[in-house]
C-alpha cells in the first residue's frame, strides 16, 4: 500500500496545473502505476473552508480515485472539532481558526495524534449593502468600535458626522463558526460584542441580510464576498497606510490586508491516516493541489515552503 501511495504522490507533483486535460492524461498513467484505492474520507468543520475542501474533494474523486468517497460536511469549526475529537471521529476537521488549547487537551486525553495542515489564507471581509455609499472606507479601529459593546458607536454618524444618522445593524456568523471566534479573539481581543449583533448559522442568510439592509454590516470569509460582488460591497480597510481593498493579492501572506488575514486549516487525525491509506492519500492530494484551487474559491495561497513542510510530514507517515 505504501508503494502505491508514494508513486501516486509523484504523479500529483507533476500535475501542478490542474487542467482537465492534464489530469485526464495523468489518470491514464496512474492506472498503470497505482492500484485503485477504496474507502471513505469523512470531513467536517468550517463552513468557510467548505468551498475549498469540497472543490478538492470533487477533483480528487473525479480525477484521481473514483473508488474513494470523500464526503464533506460543514457544521462549523467548533462543532466540527467536537465530532473530530472522539473515538472513531471524522478524518479531517476543517478550521477557520487554530485549534484551541482545550481541544488539544481533549486530543491528548484520547491519545489521538492530530496534525495541523495549513491550507490557505482567508481575509476577514467586512461587507455592506450596495447602496451604502458612505462607509466604503473605514479604519480597522472604526470597525472594531462598530462591533464592540462599549465601542461608543451605534449610528453611522457616530463615526463621521457626515454619515447618516441611522442605526448600524451588525451581523455575523454564530459561535459555531471559527470565523466568529477569530473575530472575537483576534480582532476584538475577547471584548464583548454589541448586544444586538445578529449572529447566524448560515452564511447564505448573512449575505441575504446585507444585500437587503442598507444599514447592515457583516463580517465573514473573503470567499463569501467574492462570490457575491454583485450583491455586496467590501469595506476597504485602512490599517494606517490608506484604505486596502480585500482581494486575493492583498490578503496573501504579507499583503496589505494581512492584519485581517488568517490562515485556515484542516486538521488530520494522524492515527486514522496511518490506518487508512486512502485518507493519507487524500491528505497528500490536498496539500499538493490546494494552492491551485484556492484562488478559484476566494482564498490566497500559502507559501510553498509551508506546503512542502506538510507534504514531507505526510510522506513520513507512509
Amino acid at each position, binding site marked *: 500500500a505504501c508503494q502505491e501511495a508514494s508513486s501516486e504522490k509523484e504523479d500529483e507533483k507533476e500535475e501542478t496545473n490542474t487542467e482537465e486535460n492534464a489530469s485526464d492524461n495523468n489518470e491514464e498513467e496512474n492506472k498503470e502505476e497505482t492500484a485503485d484505492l477504496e474507502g471513505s474520507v469523512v470531513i*467536517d468543520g468550517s463552513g468557510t473552508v467548505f468551498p475549498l475542501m469540497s472543490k478538492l474533494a470533487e477533483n480528487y474523486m473525479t480525477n484521481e480515485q473514483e473508488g474513494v468517497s470523500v464526503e464533506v*460536511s*460543514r457544521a462549523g469549526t467548533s*462543532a466540527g472539532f467536537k*465530532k473530530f475529537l472522539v473515538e472513531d471521529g471524522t478524518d479531517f476537521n476543517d478550521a477557520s481558526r487554530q485549534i484551541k488549547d482545550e481541544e488539544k487537551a481533549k486530543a491528548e486525553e484520547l491519545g489521538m495524534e492530530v496534525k495541523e495542515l495549513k491550507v490557505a489564507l482567508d481575509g476577514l471581509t467586512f461587507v455592506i449593502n450596495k447602496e451604502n455609499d458612505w462607509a466604503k472606507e473605514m479604519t480597522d479601529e472604526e470597525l472594531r468600535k462598530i462591533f464592540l459593546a462599549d465601542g461608543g458607536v451605534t449610528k453611522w454618524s457616530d463615526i463621521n458626522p457626515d454619515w447618516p444618522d441611522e442605526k448600524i445593524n451588525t451581523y455575523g456568523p454564530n*459561535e*459555531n463558526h471559527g470565523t466568529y471566534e477569530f473575530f472575537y479573539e483576534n480582532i476584538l481581543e475577547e471584548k464583548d460584542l454589541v448586544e444586538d449583533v445578529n449572529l447566524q448559522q*448560515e452564511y447564505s*442568510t448573512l449575505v441575504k441580510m446585507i444585500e437587503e*439592509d442598507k444599514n447592515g454590516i457583516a463580517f465573514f470569509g473573503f470567499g463569501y464576498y467574492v462570490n457575491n460582488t454583485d450583491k455586496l460591497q467590501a469595506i476597504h480597510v485602512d490599517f494606517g497606510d490608506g484604505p486596502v481593498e480585500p482581494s486575493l493579492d492583498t490578503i496573501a501572506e504579507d499583503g496589505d490586508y494581512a492584519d485581517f488575514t488568517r490562515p485556515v486549516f484542516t486538521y488530520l487525525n494522524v492515527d486514522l491516516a496511518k490506518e487508512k491509506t486512502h485518507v493519507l492519500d487524500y491528505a497528500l492530494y490536498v496539500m499538493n493541489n490546494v494552492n491551485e484551487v484556492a484562488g478559484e474559491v476566494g482564498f490566497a495561497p500559502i507559501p510553498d515552503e509551508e506546503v512542502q513542510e506538510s507534504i514531507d510530514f505526510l510522506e513520513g507517515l507512509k
Partner: protein
Amino acid sequence: MMQTNREPVHVQELIAKKKQSKNLFLKFEKSIPVILFLIASISILTTIGIIYTLLSETIEFFQEVSIVEFFTGTVLKPLSQNPKFGVLPLITGTLTSTLIAMLVAAPIGLMTAIYLSEFASERIRKICKPLLEILAGIPTIVYGFFAFTFVTPLLKHIIPGLETTNILSPGIVMGIMIIPMIASLSEDAMTSVPNAMREGALALGATKLEVATRVVIPAAFSGIVASIVLAISRAIGETMIVTIASGSSKSFTFDITESMQTMTAYIVEVTGGDAPAGSTIYYSLYAVAMTLFVFTLLMNLFARYISKKFKEDY
C-alpha cells in the same frame, strides 16, 4: 357420468389425507396472534423510545443547567463562552410563528371549509379538494424555499422594516401549508352535520350564510376545534420553513418583523448536520426536544379529548 373415465374425486377423503400437514399449520396458526402482537408493539416501543431518549438526556441536561433557569431564562446563548440556556426565546419564537400561522390558516381554512361544504356545487368541490390536497402534499422544504425567496421579498414591499429573516414570512407560509389540513378536517365535520338540520333552518327562511354560521358551525364545533388544535400541533412541530426563513437569532422579542428561532429550528441549528455528543449544548437539544414533544403531545391529546368529549349528539 363424468366425461373422464377416471374414478371420481372424493374431496373429503383427500382432505382427510392432508390432515397431517394441516396439523403442523395449525400449530403455526396459533403463534400468529403472538407474532402480530409483537409487530403491533412496535408503536408502543416507538413511544417508549422517544420518551426514554428525550428524558434521559434531558435529565442529564438539568444536572448542568437548572430547570428554573431553563424555563424562565430569556437569554439563550448556547455557544458562547459562558453559555446561557433560557428556553423562553425559543418558546416565544415557536408560539409567535404558530400564532401567525393560525391567524392565516384558521380563518382561511374555515372559510374554505364553509365554502366547500355549504356553498360550492358538487363540481367545484370535486375540483378544489384534490387541488388543496396537493397543497398539503408539498414538502416543507419547498415551502421554506418559497418563504425565503418569494414571500419575504414580497412582504418587504409592504413592511419596509421587515428583516431578511423574520418570523412573519415563515409564519404566513406555514399557515398556507396548514390551510388544507383545517379545511379538510373541518369540512368533514361540517358535512357530517345532517342535512335535516340545514333544511330545518332553510325552511325558516335562513340564508345559506345563516345556516352555516348559526347551525352548521355550532353543530360541528368540536370537530372544527379539534382540527384547529391539530393544526396548532402541526405548526409547533414544523421545522424546515422556519429554519430556512427565520434565521437563527435567539433574541427574546415579540417583534414579528425580526428573526426569531423556534424550538425546531434550534434543534436543526445545533445538530448543524450532526450533533457533537456529550456537551451541554448537545443535552440542551434533548431538553428543547422534550419541551417540543410535550407541547405537541398535549395538543394532540387535547384534540382527541375535544372530539370525543363534545361528540355531537344529533
